[in-house]
Structures are given as C-alpha cells and as structure tokens.
C-alpha cells in the first residue's frame, strides 16, 4: 500500500507499478487535475492545505476499507499539497484487482470518500483574488 501526502509532483507511473502485481488483471486509476476554471471563472492556480497527520490517517483508513471490501492486495493513493498549476495532478489513485469491476468500484469509492472526510482544503486563485473551496455537502460525518 502507498498512502502519501506530497509537495512534489505525483509520480503516476510509480503508483501504477505498485499495484501491477502478477495476480491482477485490471488497474483503474483516477487523477484529479487542476482545471483552468471553476464553474466558468478562470483559475490561475490552486493551493492545497492539509491537516497532515490526520489526512494521512484518514486516507489510510479509506484505502484499508476499500482493500477489505473488494478483497484487494494493492492500492496506491497520493495527494499533493502546496501550490499547483493548471494540468497538475492534485490526487492520484491506482487500484489493481484480479477483475476490472472491483478495480473501478474501489477506485471510485476511494475518491468519493476522500472528498467527504479527509481534512484537505483547496484554495482557488483567480486573477483578482482567492477563495477557499467549502462544499456545502461535504460535511464529514462523525465516525
């Protein structure tokens, strides 16, 4: 298992290599990349801040949940911190599984769940200011 926060660019081939084990027939990856706009408004760059120790612990818990639920032996999850330019990956997930259904479902579960309960925050920088993104629907549940 790879679970990490990093201020360096995410090395996607390394994550894929990690989950490419001989018993796996399918690898699903998801990359979140910095879009050039936020609901149409041009974005200059993004910044990510994390409650680092808790974020890594939550990421590990989510990965362990996925590995148990879909009986996986290899998952990699990396999230960037700091300043990111358009096109850079903010998050990368790689899931290897014997068959593709499990790889897709686990990968989707990890990104969906990460977005609801890992303490990481995104700041969108526009030409004329910056805002912290605070989705109204992403309140972490108590657990």
């Amino acid at each position: 298992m790879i679970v990490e926060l990093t201020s360096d660019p995410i090395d996607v081939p390394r994550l894929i290599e990690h989950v490419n084990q001989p018993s796996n027939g399918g690898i699903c990856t998801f990359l979140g990349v910095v879009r050039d706009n936020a609901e149409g408004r041009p974005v200059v760059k993004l910044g990510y801040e994390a409650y680092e120790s808790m974020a890594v612990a939550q990421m590990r818990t989510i990965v362990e949940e996925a590995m148990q639920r879909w009986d996986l032996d290899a998952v990699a999850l990396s999230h960037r911190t700091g300043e990111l330019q358009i096109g850079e990956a903010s998050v990368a997930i790689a899931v290897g599984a014997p068959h593709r259904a499990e790889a897709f479902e686990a990968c989707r579960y990890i990104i969906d769940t990460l977005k609801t309960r890992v303490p990481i925050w995104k700041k969108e920088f526009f030409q004329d200011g910056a805002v912290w993104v605070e989705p109204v629907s992403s309140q972490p549940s108590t657990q």
Partner: protein
Amino acid sequence: MAETKPPPSASPAEAPAAISVRVLFFASLADLMGERRRNLNLPAGSTIADALRDMATDVPDLAVRAPHVSFAVNEAFVTADAPLSDGDELALIPPVSGG
C-alpha cells in the same frame, strides 16, 4: 506551552480543575482566527461547544461558522458535545475540499 500548566488541584488524585487543550485552525478558519493554533485553558469537564463559546468571545464570527465546522479530537472525528481532556488536540475542520 509552559504557561498552560493547570493550577494546583485541591485533591491531587482527582482530575484537574482546569484543562489545557491545543486547538488547530485550517484554511478559512485559520484566516478567520488570524492564527493556525492556540492553547486554550478551560474548566475541567468542558466540551467542544464550551471551547467554541470561549473562543467566540475573541472572534464572534466563529459562532456563525460553527454550524458548518466539523471537529476532530486527537485526529478522530467527534461531535460538538464531546468532552475534552487535558492535553487533547482539538482541530476545527471547515468543509473539506481535497481531491
């Protein structure tokens, strides 16, 4: 952190009459508070809600934001009625937007 030592208790075998909690602020809440952490002294038996009321005397807008904030004590999510213990790390977690 030396200044946050609790006052001497009447009965040393019991819980201290006051507790010290380390509070962490992130993202928009760090902007609001103008700091990223503070040490807070509270009466023994205080909950997160008590800590918020205490801090809102400095920063009234914190009370406005509180309904949209989640809480973690020692890196585990808890609700606002959770009790605090001496030495706890309380994190105020605005709506997350990672990914």
